């Protein structure tokens, strides 16, 4: 190894210990500096959340909204929601759907990232441009294209399958059951979610120096071993971050699910955000829908608790 490759000294080692006896003003300055950001977070996120909690304990239909009356109903909205078997069915469906989509996004994203690492520069740029285009296309535009592709009569997918010899797909309805509808929606979200994950993981991969791979090669490691010994440790913290973000995004995805079949057929592709919309916007029961939103908030907090824990524990944002 050439001498120049010696890593620079860690910033912590060179940092000067704060001297005792500094003025109280100087110590409060950092907190004053973050104060505007803190106020913004509290006003833009804290206040709506408190409002949401408040509304979830009220009966707030169109009448109450227009007349401005405040009707407190205690835990009625929660009792009603939790005692509805449909709510639990939708919750399980949402969790399974989220898990499946997140897992698929991570696997495909990782695969594409590894592929980019090994491709020649020209092909790689083509792939990257393609990914950016898929990512940059507006959600509803992509959704419309997917609807056309999967259309029963005029869709290119059924026609292609027919040409390939699968004649059973002539007039096949992809949206006749909840499961197949959710599969199409899942593919759609996967399509839109992969570019971000792939680019983020690729950024982590190019941080690993060539020498490490060469060293692994000299030691006789197989491709599989090289991946686990060299690549994986480098991208593990990034993997944790993108899975956390993907869970947040996929759990609350609304536009695509609604645009495809409004949660149908027979409510078979209804997820929690859809039921929230149906209760709140379609039926004007804002109190009941606030209760669903609060329950979603609790679920997300539980699911992502481990990540938050890691975030709090870590000294240098080193997530693993």
């Amino acid at each position: 190894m050439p001498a120049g490759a010696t890593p620079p000294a860690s910033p912590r080692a060179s940092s000067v210990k704060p001297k005792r006896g500094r003025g109280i003003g100087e110590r409060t300055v950092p907190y004053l500096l973050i104060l505007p950001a803190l106020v913004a977070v509290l006003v833009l996120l804290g206040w709506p959340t408190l409002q949401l909690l408040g509304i979830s304990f009220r009966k707030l239909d169109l009448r109450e909204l227009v007349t401005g009356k405040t009707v407190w109903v205690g835990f009625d909205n929660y009792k009603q929601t939790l005692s509805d078997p449909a709510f639990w069915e939708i919750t399980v469906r949402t969790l399974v759907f989220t898990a499946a989509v997140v897992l698929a996004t991570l696997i495909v994203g990782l695969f594409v990232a590894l592929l980019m690492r090994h491709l020649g520069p020209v092909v790689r740029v083509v792939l990257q441009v393609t990914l950016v285009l898929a990512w940059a296309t507006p959600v509803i535009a992509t959704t419309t294209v997917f609807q056309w592709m999967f259309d029963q009569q005029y869709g290119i997918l059924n026609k292609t399958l027919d040409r390939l010899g699968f004649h059973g797909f002539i007039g096949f309805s992809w949206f006749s059951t909840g499961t197949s509808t959710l599969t199409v929606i899942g593919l759609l979200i996967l399509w839109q979610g992969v570019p971000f994950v792939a680019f983020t993981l690729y950024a982590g991969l190019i941080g690993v120096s060539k020498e490490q791979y060469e060293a692994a090669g000299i030691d006789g490691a197989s491709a599989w071993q090289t991946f686990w010994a060299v690549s994986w440790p480098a991208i593990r913290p990034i993997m944790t971050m993108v899975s956390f973000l993907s869970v947040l995004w996929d759990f609350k995805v609304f536009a695509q699910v609604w645009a495809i079949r409004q949660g149908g057929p027979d409510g078979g592709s209804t997820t929690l955000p859809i039921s929230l919309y149906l209760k709140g916007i379609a039926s004007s029961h804002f109190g009941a829908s606030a209760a669903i939103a609060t329950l979603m908030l609790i679920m997300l907090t539980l699911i992502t608790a481990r990540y938050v824990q890691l975030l709090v524990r870590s000294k240098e944002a080193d997530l693993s």
Partner: protein
Amino acid sequence: MKRWLKLAAGAAAVTLATAGCAGSGGTDAGAAPSAAPSDGTLTVWLMTGSAPDTLTGALNTEFESAHPGVKVKYEVQQWNGIQQKLTTALAGDDAPDVIEIGNTQTPAFASQGVLADLSGSVNDLNGAQWLAGLKASGEFDGKTYGVPFYAANREVLYRKDMFEQAGIAAPPTSDAEWIADIAKLKAKFGSDPDFQPLYLPGQYWYSLLSFIWDNGGDVAKADGKSFKSTLDSAGAKAGLEFYKQLVDASGTTAPKDNDEANPAQAGIYGGGKVAMFIGAPYEVATAAKTDPSLTAKTGAFPIPSKTAGQTAPVFLGGSNLAIPVNSKDQALAKDYLKLLSGAKYQTQLAAAGYVPGTSTDVSALDSDPLASVMAKASKNGRAVPASPKWGDVESGQNPLKDMLTAYLTGKKSLDQATSDANAALDKLIG
């Protein structure tokens, strides 16, 4: 401190994820309606494609000249998302003074007490001539909240040239004749694989309503103040069976899992390979954008009944006019409605191809062959159950659509499909 901040940041991220869906709470201050003074502006919200611009232009000018110092702020709204927009607008301090509401949405707003009670003004607004099918949708608990504006209903639009070539002398006058004519058209043009005697998408539930009513069934029946769905009745089942009979006889390639708007059926008809579709007269104008010759080639007949010589009842779509309780100029708004419901503007509405809501004079419709058929059929017009919760059916997940798809694709038997839809509808409006 650092720990605490990170925790807050993490919690904030989670909050951001859900708070976006929650919506805001509205004002808690008990604003007393009608207390605020008039600001000299009358805000009128009409829907896109309802009254033509020439009508509203003349109406607003006449109103302003009759009320010096008053300015009409006329705004055209889009149907898409109108329920949310109205909800927000009605709750706000600056509510519009006159609004147009779809007839199926009116009971929801009326039952919530957000519309002004117009019971005392019915006579001023030409009450004796109100269109019966719309009148009921504007009433709740014995009081009147909505004034009929206009109605339109569906009929069968057909290619006169194709009927002639297939040797069909006159349009069918019964269900049996209709099916027979479909067979004749198929025999004549069937060699073209893209040809469809009747374009009928699987989730066209407005058409299904006609067949259900024609067979003596109904969607739901009033049970005191609540509703009980009757989709599992013999009449409803017979209507559904006839729907399938039509789909099978025609061999239509329309999607079974989508409605008449996706893809827009007028566009398919414009392609020139469709001999008939069930639609409103204005849809022909859309088709003529693709092929202008269709305007002359298209004729209309009422949706046939199973009883020869009669016509099937039709779903009366349309709009009502209403005044929000939060309007600051209710007296002016009533004057505006009075002017609009008068004979002068109702005649103009009829000339634009709509069945006018507050006038029985439909002579202006007779000059148009397509509109005159519609006007005749409108006398046998019916409405969906006047349940305050019916809005949920249309703005949410419609069990009738699910029922049609499940039955037509063979996913469910007739009994299964109807009983499932019955239960689902009961959950929504029961």
